[in-house]
């Protein structure tokens, strides 16, 4: 309600709503006595609506909190504060047993096709796990269900009795997908599902994901650091930097009119296939490293690396809101958003 009032958005079919989600991890102290316990600010106040049936891409550099956010959504981590609402129900404070029915409705596909499958168990029992855990189907019935799933994700159902080590990376990712889809979830959180695969296999998996979305009416949260992949699969994209969402918009809108300097820099880093088309001036190399998430910078977290930063940026935290002249779906968190076609670096005079 408050979220809608703030963004002025009309009633939409929201499947998942994040309100000010915060996740801090305590840092093991190296001092034996005293000292204030420090925390990694992995996710630091993320609000986001995920609509039923859409694919929302989550992009950002390594360590920006994408995976942590995914694990907060699926309750693999408990949030430090804020709420995660699924289908209008706050699930962030449910007990393990209360959560179980929601586990069926949202599933996760993992990044590492090797680590995400138990090497000591047969594929059939791995994919059958969801049924076993939720007490559905027994014996032959379960086996039929598992083989249907294997066929659904393009695996040979005859390989039911094989071990994960006997499959290629792409096939393993299909197994992980079959397991995630077993309980017919509504939401699938894909945590970099293709980044560990060869490019040719990536395309297969992405097409499979798209096929399944059409067939089963899935909603995806698609995490990646490869912008071209995200652009291909996503309806909307949220850009994260140091635990915050800095910009969110429809995919084409974001690529055409990035408002946040970080988004602009990120987009300029996408390699262009034709070297003749590369314009030196368009490429923005950000200086410096991502600051430590243990002591994030004051004000706008991007200010130490931002070419547009001014004194206001060091003190005042920008709010994620719609900028003048933008469509209502396009929000950015920046005091000095980039105008259409404007180069990222302001002229010297302007900056002064």
């Amino acid at each position, binding site marked *: 309600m408050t979220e809608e009032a703030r963004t002025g958005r009309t009633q939409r079919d929201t499947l998942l709503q994040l309100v000010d989600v915060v996740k801090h991890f305590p840092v093991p102290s190296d001092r034996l006595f005293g000292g204030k316990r420090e925390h990694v600010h992995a996710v630091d106040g993320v609000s986001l609506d995920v609509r039923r049936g859409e694919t929302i891409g989550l992009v950002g550099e390594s360590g920006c909190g994408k995976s942590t956010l995914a694990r907060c959504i699926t309750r693999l981590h408990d949030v430090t504060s804020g709420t995660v609402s699924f289908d209008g129900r706050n699930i962030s404070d449910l007990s393990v047993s209360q959560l179980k029915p929601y586990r069926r409705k949202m599933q996760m596909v993992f990044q590492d096709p090797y680590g995400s499958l138990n090497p000591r168990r047969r594929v059939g029992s791995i994919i059958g796990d969801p049924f076993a855990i939720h007490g559905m189907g027994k014996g032959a019935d379960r086996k039929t269900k598992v083989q249907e799933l294997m066929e659904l994700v393009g695996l040979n159902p005859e390989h039911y009795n094989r071990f994960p080590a*006997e499959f290629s990376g792409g096939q393993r990712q299909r197994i992980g997908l079959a397991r995630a889809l077993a309980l017919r979830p509504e939401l699938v959180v894909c945590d970099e599902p293709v980044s560990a695969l060869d490019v040719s296999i990536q395309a297969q998996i992405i097409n499979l994901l798209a096929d399944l979305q059409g067939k089963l009416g899935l909603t995806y949260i698609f995490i990646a650091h490869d912008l071209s992949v995200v652009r291909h699969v996503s309806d909307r994209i949220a850009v994260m930097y140091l635990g915050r969402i800095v910009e969110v918009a429809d995919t084409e809108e974001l690529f055409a009119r990035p408002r946040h300097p970080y988004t602009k820099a990120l987009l300029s880093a996408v390699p262009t296939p034709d070297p003749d088309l590369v314009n030196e001036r368009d490429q923005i190399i950000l200086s410096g490293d991502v600051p430590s998430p243990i002591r994030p910078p004051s004000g706008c977290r991007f200010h130490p690396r931002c070419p547009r930063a001014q004194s206001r940026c060091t003190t005042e935290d920008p709010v994620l809101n719609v900028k003048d002249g933008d469509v209502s779906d396009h929000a950015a968190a920046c005091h000095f958003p980039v105008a259409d076609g404007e180069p990222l670096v302001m002229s010297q005079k302007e900056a002064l």
Partner: protein
Amino acid sequence: MTVTPPDQIESTGLSSTLPAAVEAIEGRGPWLLAWARLRRDKVAVGSSVVILGIILLALFAPWVAHLVGHGPNTQFRTTGLSPDGIPVGPGSTFLFGTDDLGRDVFIRVIYGARISLLAGAVSAGLAVAVGVIIGLAAGYFGGAVDGVLSRFMDVVLSLPYLVFAIALVSLLGPSLAISVAVIAFFSWASVGRIVRGQVLSIKEKEFVEAARSLGASHLRIMFIDILPNVLAPTIVYATMLIPLSIVFEATLSFLGIGVLPPTATWGNMLSESIAYYKVAWWFVAFPGLALLITTMAFNLLGDCVRDAFDPRGNRLFVATEE
């Protein structure tokens, strides 16, 4: 055994036939591979045969005794001792000679094997069961649970076991059950440590997260997802633990705080033979040899099991492609 190349699977994939010869394709799991390697290892086969032989002798000891006509505690004062009361050496009547009371050493050695194997297997089994459960809990839950359990394991490992055993026996009186309990109590902690260490690394794997996101209970994750992955090193250690326990039991019997005479054990036979080793070498040699051969066979088998589970140890596997 045919293995379909991976690229072939990818292309056949999709809408091929579902039913029919589904059970035709049986995956060769890590257990099966280890078993195949073990079967091809000559040392493993040899030591297994030795162990099997000892087990059979122990099992059929009463039958052998009946066949020979010598009970384990029967004293042959006329045939088994020389006129001066000296034990008789190995021969056709007494295969391994006799002891100071004119008893058949061979029969006593195979009866002793029953105690040794029983004590070894039961206490190693107990130690592994307790160690696995405690180690799993410590590694999986971490934090305070791990702190308490790990410190407890440290305490157990630092206790002087002989002093403890002597004290316990003086309270409860010596028996096989007490020996087994003492051996298991002093062995589980090292199993627990090994399991805990393995669990610490395995619980970080994504398949554990996957199980959690499916709503699996802690018990299910511990025993279905994690345990199979720590079983290989545990089995290796368990195979090594059996000879350790056998020696431990022999030590207790030797000191007179284990199984008491007249019940024959290798430990108390060795202890009785000390006074006679100059005149009756067989009295000390055969129980000693039995102990040595048994522990060596188990240790060699343990080494082979470890090699078989080692994913890099595929030399046997490559060398024997028929």
